[in-house]
Every structure is written in C-alpha cells, then in structure tokens.
C-alpha cells in the first residue's frame, strides 16, 4: 500500500529481456543510489563495459578463460536416483559445483577482473558472505596479477573459516567487518567505503546482481553463461526446453544467470528459492521477495527486509550466502510482472536436501544450493514424468562441512 505513495518514476513494465533501461531501471527497480563520489566511477564502468561487451577480443578472452581456467562448460547431469526417489519430473542438475573454486561466482569474477585489467586498475576489492565470492575474487586476482582485498562480516568469518584461510593462501587480505549485523550486507557497505576512498586505483567486484547500475546488468550478463549452456545442453540431450528452472536466491546472481536466457521463453517456469531460515512465521529469515517491501539499499531500489520506519531488519539463514536483506532489482521486477515465482525453504528443509543429495547422488551441495534442491524435490513430485526440471546447483558444500559437523555434534579438530 505504502509503495503507491513513493511516486516512483515510471519505468517500462513490458516483458522483455532488453533490460535495464538507460537509467539502470528494471521497471521501477534498480537505479544508481550512491554517494556523489562514486557517480563518476560507476558511469566510467558503464561506458567501459558497453564499449567492451561486443568487442570480439574481449569476448574471446572471457571464453578462453571460462573454458581452460574455469573448466566450462559445466555438465547438465540427469539425477536419475533423485528423480526416481521423488517420482515426478525428470530432474537435471546444472553442475556449477564442478567449476573452478566450487561455485558459479567465478563466472562473474573472470569477466569483472578482465574489465579491471582493461580499465587499468591494479587493485580489486570484494565483499563476501559464504566466502565463495571472496575466494573467486582472490583467485582471479592471483590469475591476473591484481592486489585483492576482501571484506567479510565477523559472523561469517566464524562460520566459513575454510574459505577465509583459502583467501589468504591466494594472497588476498581479508578484512573483518564488525559493524551492524556483521554479515554480508555490512561487508558490502564496508567495501563501498573502501571504494570511495580508493576510487582511482580500485575496481570493486560486486559478487551478485545487486549494487548500483551497471552492476546488476553486468553481473547478470557474465552469469548468463549458465542459462545459455543449459538451453543448448537441454535441447541437445532432450530435444526440448526445460519446463521449470529452480535456483536459490541470495542476491540473485546464480538465479539470474540461469533465468536470463529463458526470460522470453514463456513456457519455462522460473522459480527462485529464498531462505525461510528458522521459519517465515518467526521473522528470522532472509526472504525479501516473499514478504518484504520496496525500498533503497546499497545502490538500488528493490524489495527489502525492513521495518515500517525504513530500518533494515536482521536476517537469518543457515547459509551465509543467502543471508542478505535485499535482492537484485531484476528479480523484483520479474516478480511484479509475474514472469518468475519466488518461494521459500527453511533451514531444516535445506539441511534435509543437503543430506539426501549426498546419499542419492553422491553430490555434496553448498547449503545455498540445497535450498533449490529442497524446493525442486517438492515441485518435481507434482510434475509429470515427461517434464524436465533443472536445478541450478550453484556450488559445492566443502565449505559447509564444519557447519554440518557442528549441527551433528561432531568435532573435526
């Protein structure tokens, strides 16, 4: 109701993949809500990106690294035992867990690190929650000879200690962030502060489809390789498009990556899974698309977890990578125009799916991705055997073993 009072500038609500508009808007979402000092930097980035994105040499460089360094394409794997167990649609897994560093985050980092190189920036910074984006950033920094500094909330440092050490091995500096809720959003604010102070020398690699324009657009473009491959592979293997795509949503990059090439294929259902944490009724979750309201945080207008005074609420998810009160603006738009559906899975359900994928397929999913698996199992059961459901298995769960062991009461040291 309140949203109507905002008098938000009108944007196009047409169904189209040709988004965002000139001002960086997806319908009424997105924009450039940053301090004046950063305005020049984000417009320089936009200009450079628009100049390079159709440059054959730049494209070839990215493709070469995605193939030989990242290990793409990633398989589209028929999860036969899981499919039998569920008894419904054919379940396929898009195996982003198999790419270098163990999650989709690297797809985006390769693209942005090359942008940084082209822009002559010797230093990159990143925020991280689960540590996967931090690891991917530190990795490409090593690969391209850039200095790297990663901001991480102290609460996440405690629950993702393996990744913290891994970033250090990669030569990155990990800066603990102890302000606010000590998680992903606070790491992002701290990275913005670093960027303001070092804007001449530094490129900020945002890890998801959030932040100010042009980030939601360029991160999506770099992640779209997931959906493009899926489309090609599904056609080649089954002679048809999938009927449903299921992906977890933190900031929304793995979901946008697989959804984007299918936006105009309206027969394909697009389903994003948000974390219900301790349960939607407890309020301890991180599901802004499901129950949030529109506001502005960290560079863009989008759905947020906030109270009636516009203060951002504390979030909870067992998975650090989904523990974020906002979401990429393109998802907010896809929700409003009803092109994508957003659902929730709580901690318990995600942990259950985590165990089942281990037992039924011999695959250890990231806790983030386990949210997608849990919902896909419910959905596939209601679909027909000749239908195809693809889960974006965004990452592997090695990083989550200490957390799981803790839950199981097992000491690893």
């Amino acid at each position, binding site marked *: 109701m*309140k949203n109507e*009072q*905002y*008098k*938000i*500038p009108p944007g196009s609500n047409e169904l189209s993949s040709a988004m965002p508009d000139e*001002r960086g808007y997806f319908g009424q979402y997105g*924009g*450039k*809500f*940053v*301090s*004046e*000092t*950063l*305005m*020049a*930097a984000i417009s320089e980035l936009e200009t450079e990106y628009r100049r390079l994105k159709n440059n054959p040499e730049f494209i070839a460089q990215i493709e070469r690294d995605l193939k030989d360094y990242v290990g793409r394409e990633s398989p589209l794997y028929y999860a036969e035992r899981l499919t039998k167990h569920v008894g419904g649609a054919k379940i396929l897994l898009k195996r982003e867990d198999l790419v270098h560093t163990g999650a989709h985050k690297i797809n985006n980092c390769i693209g942005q690190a090359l942008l940084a190189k082209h822009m002559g920036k010797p230093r990159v910074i990143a925020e991280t929650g689960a540590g996967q984006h931090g690891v991917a950033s530190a990795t490409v920094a090593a690969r391209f000879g850039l200095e790297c500094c990663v901001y991480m909330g102290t609460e996440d440092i405690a629950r993702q200690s393996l990744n913290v050490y891994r970033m250090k091995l990669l030569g990155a500096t990990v800066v603990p962030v102890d*302000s*606010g809720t000590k998680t992903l*959003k*606070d790491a992002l*604010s701290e990275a*913005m*502060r670093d960027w*303001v*102070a*070092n*804007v*001449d020398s530094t490129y900020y690699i945002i890890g998801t489809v959030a932040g100010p324009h042009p980030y939601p657009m360029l991160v999506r473009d770099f992640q779209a390789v997931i959906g493009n491959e899926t489309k090609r592979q599904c056609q080649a293997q089954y002679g048809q498009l999938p009927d449903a795509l299921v992906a977890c949503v933190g900031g929304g990059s793995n979901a946008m990556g697989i959804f984007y090439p299918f936006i105009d294929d309206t027969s394909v259902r697009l389903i994003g899974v948000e974390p219900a944490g301790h349960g939607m009724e407890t309020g301890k979750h991180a599901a802004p698309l499901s129950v949030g*309201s*529109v*506001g*502005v*945080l*960290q*560079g863009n*207008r989008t759905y*947020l977890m*906030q109270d*009636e*005074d*516009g*203060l*951002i609420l504390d979030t909870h998810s067992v998975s650090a990578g989904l523990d974020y009160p906002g979401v990429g603006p393109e998802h907010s738009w896809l929700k409003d125009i009803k092109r994508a559906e957003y659902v929730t899975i709580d901690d318990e359900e995600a942990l259950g799916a985590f165990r089942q994928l281990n037992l039924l397929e011999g695959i250890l999913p990231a806790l983030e991705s386990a949210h997608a698996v849990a919902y896909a199992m419910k959905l596939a059961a209601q679909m027909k055997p000749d239908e195809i459901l693809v889960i974006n298995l965004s990452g592997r769960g090695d990083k989550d073993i200490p957390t799981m062991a803790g839950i199981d009461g097992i000491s690893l040291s």
Partner: protein
Amino acid sequence: MNRFEERFSTLQVSGKKALVVYIVAGDPASETTVRLMHEMVSQGADIIELGVPFTDPEAEGPVIQLGHERALRARTTLTDTLAMARAFRQQDKKTPIALMGYINPIEAMGYDVFVDKALESGIDGTIIVNLPPEEGEILGSAMIEKGLSPIYLLSPTTLNERAKLICKQSRGFIYYVSLKGTTGASNLNYTEVAERVAKFKAMTDTPILVGFGIKDAESAGKISKMADGAVVGSAIVQLIEQNESEPEVILKEVGSLVASIREGMDSAQ
C-alpha cells in the same frame, strides 16, 4: 526569504562564514540531542545538520557509524528525529536545520507525508547521501514546491557538466565533500579544495560549504577562507562517544569545541 537565505545574508552583513555542525539525532538520547542543538547554537553554530539514524550508513567512517548505532540502540527513527527538530523549533525560530541521512527511511514514510511532516517540524532542507540528483528529482520538486531545500553534494570526482546540474538543482546551499573517503577521514588537501571551490563558485550564487576532514579551529579557519562555510561532524560525534553516559559533560565539551571553531573561523577572516 527562507531560513537559509536569512542566515547567509546575516552572515554576509557581519562578514562571517557559516559554521555548520552535525550530530546524529538520538545519540546518545533524544533529550540530549535537543539540548545539544541549543548549546551549539549558543556557542556560535549557524546551521544544524541533524543526522537521521540508519542501519546501513554506507558513506560514514567509523566514528559516525557508531553514532548511528548508539541512536538506533535508543530506537530513534525518522519520526523521532522530526520530533526533536520540532522541540528545538519551539525556542529557536531562526537556525536552519538540514536533515542528513539516507533515502530509505524517507521512502518508507512516503515522499508526500515526509514533506508535510518535515515542514510541520521546522525542517529547512535535506542532504541525502545516497540520492544523487538523477534519483532525487521527484522528492526534490515536492520539497521545492513547499519551500524546503534539497541540498546536493559535490565531490572531488564530480565532472564539470554534472557540477552545473547539481548547482542548479540545489537549494539552500551546496555541500562540497572535500576528499575521496568517508566522514572522519583526514587527508584534506587545502590547495585542491581551494581550486575546486573557486571553480564551483563561478557556476552558482548558491553558497558552497565544505565538509569532511574538518575537525578543529585551524582546519575550519583555513576552509572558511576558501568557501562560504565549514561543516564539522566526526569531531563532535567523537566527543559524544567519549562521554556517552554523561550528558552534562557532552554539552560542556561539545560547546567548547564549537566555540573554539567559531573563534578560529572568525579570526581567519
């Protein structure tokens, strides 16, 4: 004339530059805030920037971040901030107040409701850190229509064409962020500030005030020679932090800092 115009014209007559002080509303408690506003004015402050507490103050350095956290611990909202301004206005009809903060609490209230309430509470303008003019048109024109001043920021990275747009859209004054960094940084380069401010002044008649990195009589004195005024924030908020549980000490310490800065600025003229 609005309160900004009146204040700047009085200052001009007396040959003085504007001293702008910043505190976070409700830091450490709302009663202290209102008393502190009066105390700062009586020690020579010309304009008050009242910070609206926000959970994610992404442009602030560590000192002001903690100020926001203390204010939020006291559960201070935008509505409470407006109530403090209203309480202050009962005695002080002249000192302009600019709200300083982030756009989300204002979006949550709704632009039209906010504009009405701000007017009612004796607010004169807003400085919204994450609302560049490109995003601020709708709120800005709603404010201007009711006589409120949207104040925009200029920075060391602002290019000339943009600077012209910002100067054109700003009312009350224009806030030049003196350095690349967050509030409380101290890498001020006076020569560069002087050059930039001179260039901006050629674009507009609206007063240009300089903030970030100004912390004492000396730095404020230097800045007041090159601009229409100086903004002091972190140095004040630091004193609040150091004396959090003793409001009387806060009033005394902040009062004497403001008095010494006033003197530094006046003697530099």
